[in-house]
């Protein structure tokens, strides 16, 4: 299945506070936010309807393809110059990256985010997402047979599990699996438990502060 930036829409009450009296121009995204049902064409049109029911003008909307592509956004947004010009607020239903790319392109109007970005995750099935990666800068899943305790253990333990792992579930919520239990079972099934013998050294976090990359 696909992996992506998983977002959740803010509470409607919260979004109404952000947009005030409008008029609002709404921006969606064709990629992650569409698959998360937070900022695709369907959700953008639903948001438009909510605003109109509250007598808040919507000057227009667009679904960027995708919102995080600067030059592409620049080209598409040119076609909406008038609608954007008529708005007092631009509401972006995309990830934290999408909203900033749009804000960079629309300088003179307030740009707000209608979503909260949660994690880089997997779509297990429709509407079911799980955290898989913290973008830590140096992948170490080879040590754990392809599973990442850094992102999937709430304590990020590299020499787990802690004393709270019960029946394969995490101590902080029975709703999700203890990743250390999964790692243990997987290595045991593959006769590879010896790989857990070595103490995993502390993480080198200096790899996690890359602020940009050019190829």
């Amino acid at each position, binding site marked *: 299945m696909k992996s992506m930036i998983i977002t959740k829409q803010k509470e409607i009450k919260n979004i109404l506070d952000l947009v005030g009296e409008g008029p609002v121009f709404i921006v969606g995204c064709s990629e992650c936010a569409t698959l998360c049902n937070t900022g695709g064409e369907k959700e953008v049109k639903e948001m438009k309807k909510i605003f109109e029911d509250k007598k808040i003008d919507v000057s227009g909307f667009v679904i960027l393809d995708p919102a995080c592509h600067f030059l592409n956004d620049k080209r598409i947004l040119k076609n909406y110059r008038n609608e954007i010009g008529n708005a007092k607020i631009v509401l972006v239903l995309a990830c934290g990256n999408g909203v900033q790319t749009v804000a960079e392109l629309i300088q003179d109007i307030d740009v707000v985010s209608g979503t909260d970005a949660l994690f880089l995750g997997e779509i297990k099935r429709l509407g079911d997402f799980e955290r898989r990666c913290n973008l830590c800068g140096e992948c170490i899943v080879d040590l754990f047979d392809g599973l990442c305790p850094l992102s999937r253990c*709430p*304590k*990020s*333990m*590299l*020499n*787990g*599990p*802690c*004393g*709270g*792992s*019960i*029946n*394969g579930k995490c*101590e*902080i919520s029975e709703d999700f699996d*203890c990743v250390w*239990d999964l790692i*243990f*079972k997987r290595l*045991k099934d593959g006769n590879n*438990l010896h790989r*857990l*013998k070595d*103490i*995993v*050294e*502390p*993480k080198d*976090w200096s790899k996690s502060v890359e602020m940009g990359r050019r190829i």
Partner: protein
Amino acid sequence: MAYKSNLQRVLSEKKFAVTAEIGPPKGSDPGKIRKKAELLKGYADAFNITDNQTAVVRLSSMGGSFILLNSGLEPIMQMSCRDRNRIALQSDVLGAVSVGVRNILFMTGDHQSFGNHPGAKGVYDLDSIQLIKIVKDMRDLGVFQSGDKILAGIPDVFIGGTANPFADPLDFRVDRLEKKIIAGADFIQTQSVYNLDKFKMWMDEVYSRGLDKKVFILAGVTPLKSVKMVERMKFHVPGVDIPDEIYKRMINTPDPKSEGYNVSLELIDEIKKIKGVSGIHITALFWEDIIPKLVRESGFYPRP
């Protein structure tokens, strides 16, 4: 041999050790700890001072340890990985040793979502095993985690760790203990023991692998004070295993307080017979004044 601490002396002389926990107050009044110190003096070989246990803010374990030292008691300072990164942890080890702390117990720590500041950022830069190894290297190699040399005063710490024989996956629990020993743990305090069968199974594996020769194991004992407490521990505290038999005894008795005390006496009596166990660690939550009686009636008084 020059011992790092009284606790190390008692354990090394093969005497059955007793440690007890003192929870610091939610405030800066040293009187609370001094009072408990007065009450417990002479009833244990060393006293744990907890580090914001269950992620509830209290007087710090370093401050508490210092108060104990001034009261003539030997502290076991607890340090959790939840609230400090590797810079602060190493620095606090140096600070604690500089004022006279010699036993430090390292743990990953209860997750902040259980405490009274669930919005706090959990640090977890290190886990307990990594931290134990770092402190062992500070002590035995005289280097920080960076590899830099320690320049003035090697911290001569008796290193403690924790173990939970009742958590899953059970098959990995002794392996993980061994990892902690290799990392550098000198002594281990376990999760409170109520399920004797499970504890014996775990100790049997520990003993047959000879791990009890490499680390001192102190079994956790927590007297149950009330029905409310047993229910909270049984159903809500992660990692605690209270068998139905003990639960039923507690809910069917007209006097839960004395029944809970009796359960502890019986557990201690069984625990001291188990091969490889070097002592007990008493955590009497909000019931510290029961400790002298429990230690006396278990036959562990006076302390060596």
